[in-house]
């Protein structure tokens, strides 16, 4: 028996190692060499950028579209002759919307590929897993979808072209409390950097407004059975549910809500714009907050023509803008990493396809505008009070 027992425990330990992929890495490995490239004069070698985002796993449907946004921006610059005669090359790495995978990918980009700067990541966990190594090696990261409030103070080299959830969570809380008039909510969120951050902002603001959070509960992003959590929500006195999660758990969550007959209002963050969620069962009448993005018909047409897609998935315009801003900065100051960082802080009122971009002293967007979208018959439309 002891031998068998040993085997089982060994097997379990191995499993935990493998399963550990869903947990957060607090200390990403870093390379301490920190050598900076010496900027070459009259260099015609290509400029190497890194790109980080989910190409597999949860949210990969968004990530692959965002990659095409970057590809389009780079193609335009290269077609116009590149930057000061140098072509732009991008190394694409999969962050899988998971801290551990993203940490490996980021380390590879910075230490092995020696990229000048990084576009990415999409998920907050992907970006947060790489802030230390990016700071130490002075590599600028411009995230195009990471909205976690904790990124604000993550470091000088970390920028983002999307507003922090400290705006979005507040906006959602105000909408639920004032516009919908719901005074009691339940909050159910996945344990990830992004969803935990926005849930906390929502709870704080909602309480400040005078509302009551009757239930707060969590689940793992890898869970596919939320029935018990939803049963708890149903049996609480909640008049609305705030439900921040990434795509795959949301899809089963909505199905199980319908099965359990949960009929209160559901509100979520901008991640719900993922076509997989919009097309999912049980999402009818679900609402979500989304950053106001100016309708940019010419970009949309250009993108759809280049990729043969029929829509422009969320954060694609942001990935395009992040790439363009970085490349235009490099064009201005060259490939010196510190100069790139300094110059980015001077970006003011940049007219991007995702909106106007001005970085504040933390590398965050200085302003943010949101609107409420509602899913009706598997289509997103702007919310209007009946």
């Amino acid at each position, binding site marked *: 028996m002891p031998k068998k027992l040993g085997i089982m425990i060994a097997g379990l330990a*191995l499993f935990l190692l493998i399963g550990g992929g869903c947990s957060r890495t607090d200390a990403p490995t870093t390379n301490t060499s920190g050598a900076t490239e010496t900027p070459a004069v009259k260099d015609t070698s290509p400029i190497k950028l890194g790109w980080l985002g989910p190409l597999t796993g949860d949210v990969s449907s968004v990530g692959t579209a965002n990659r095409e946004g970057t590809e389009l921006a780079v193609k335009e610059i290269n077609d116009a002759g590149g930057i000061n005669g140098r072509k732009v090359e991008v190394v694409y790495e999969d962050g899988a919307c998971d801290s551990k995978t993203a940490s490996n990918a980021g380390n590879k980009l910075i230490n092995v590929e020696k990229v000048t700067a990084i576009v990415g990541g999409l998920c907050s966990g992907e970006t947060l897993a790489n802030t230390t190594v990016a700071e130490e090696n002075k590599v600028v990261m411009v995230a195009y979808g990471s909205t976690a409030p904790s990124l604000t103070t993550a470091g000088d080299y970390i920028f983002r072209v999307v507003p922090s959830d400290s705006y979005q969570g507040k906006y959602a809380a105000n909408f639920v409390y004032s516009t919908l008039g719901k005074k009691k909510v339940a909050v159910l969120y996945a344990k990830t950097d992004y969803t935990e951050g926005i849930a906390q902002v929502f709870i704080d603001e909602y309480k400040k407004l005078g509302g009551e959070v009757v239930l707060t*509960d969590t689940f793992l992003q890898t869970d596919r059975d939320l029935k018990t959590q939803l049963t708890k929500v149903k049996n609480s006195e909640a008049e609305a549910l705030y439900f921040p999660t990434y795509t795959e758990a949301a899809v089963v969550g909505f199905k199980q809500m319908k099965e359990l007959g949960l009929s209160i209002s559901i509100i979520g963050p901008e991640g719900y714009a993922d076509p997989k969620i919009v097309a999912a069962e049980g999402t009818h009448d679900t609402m979500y907050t989304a950053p106001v993005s100016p309708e940019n018909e010419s970009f949309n047409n250009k993108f759809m023509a280049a990729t043969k897609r029929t829509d422009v998935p969320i954060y694609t315009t942001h990935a395009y803008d992040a790439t363009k801003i970085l490349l235009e900065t490099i064009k201005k100051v060259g490939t010196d990493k510190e100069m790139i960082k300094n110059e980015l802080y001077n970006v003011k009122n940049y007219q991007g396809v995702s909106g106007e971009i001005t970085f504040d002293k933390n590398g965050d967007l200085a302003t943010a505008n949101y609107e409420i979208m509602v899913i009706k018959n598997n289509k997103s439309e702007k919310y209007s009070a009946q």
Partner: protein
Amino acid sequence: MFLQLLINGLIAGSIYALISSGFSIIYTTNKFVHFAHGSTATVAAYFLYWTFSGLGIPIYITFPLTIFVAALFGFLIHLVIYLPLKKRKTSSVILLIASIGIMIFCDNLMQLLFGANVKILSIFPHGRGIEFLGAYITPIQIAILIIVLILFVGLWTFSKYSRLGKIMRAVADNPELAKTTGINSVRIQHWSFVIGSAIAGLAGILIALEHNIEPSMGTHLMIQGFTAAVIGGVTSLPGSIVGAYVLGLVENFGIWWLPSGYKSAIAFVLLLAFLLVRPQGIFGINKGARE
């Protein structure tokens, strides 16, 4: 609330039982941990997705075909990978490592073939469950409960009364002694893989209908299935099924009070407690196997 949680726990338990029972059948006759058992369910689920959604073959053909493919898959793994290793008198640790290799390979192969996105099988329209004393249950969930019940009774009858079942128990109890009485133990091990994997195929179908399909589903299921089997007694078929229900109920009732993030923690605490206090599980005996 109590009734709803009970139903949730029973459904979760039934799903775990579908994995743990097949795992237990394979374990008793082979005496090593076949972790790739969960991957058999994944492969079956993707096969169903491919034949039904991709090729448009009707379900009365695809369902039996999926179970057959899963059985074949399990048989081939045993024939091509485990049997040559066993012939070299490899230790069960090496077999365990091999099974983990197969599991990772299968997960990644499915991801390569079908992509990482979650796949949704829309065979039956989903909708609001049927109300039953204030609790809700969907037709698919009722089907899962009934199928597992039938399977349980069927397996028990099989192992207790059928010739093959008796031989399997003999091999499980003492392979050497079984051999001296003229039993071909390799053939019995083949059979255990075929039967166990066929159950995994059934699990793949039902889980695909209840939880959607994704490449890592088998790995996650296997953790719960393995835990359930250890709790119930890995050498005992009824034990592995009882263990699955214990796990499903404890997880779901546990998070009634505890924050739901602790769901997996509850499962592992239970597993460790059993390993420390009663390593043979609820129904297991120290040596050999029961029906």
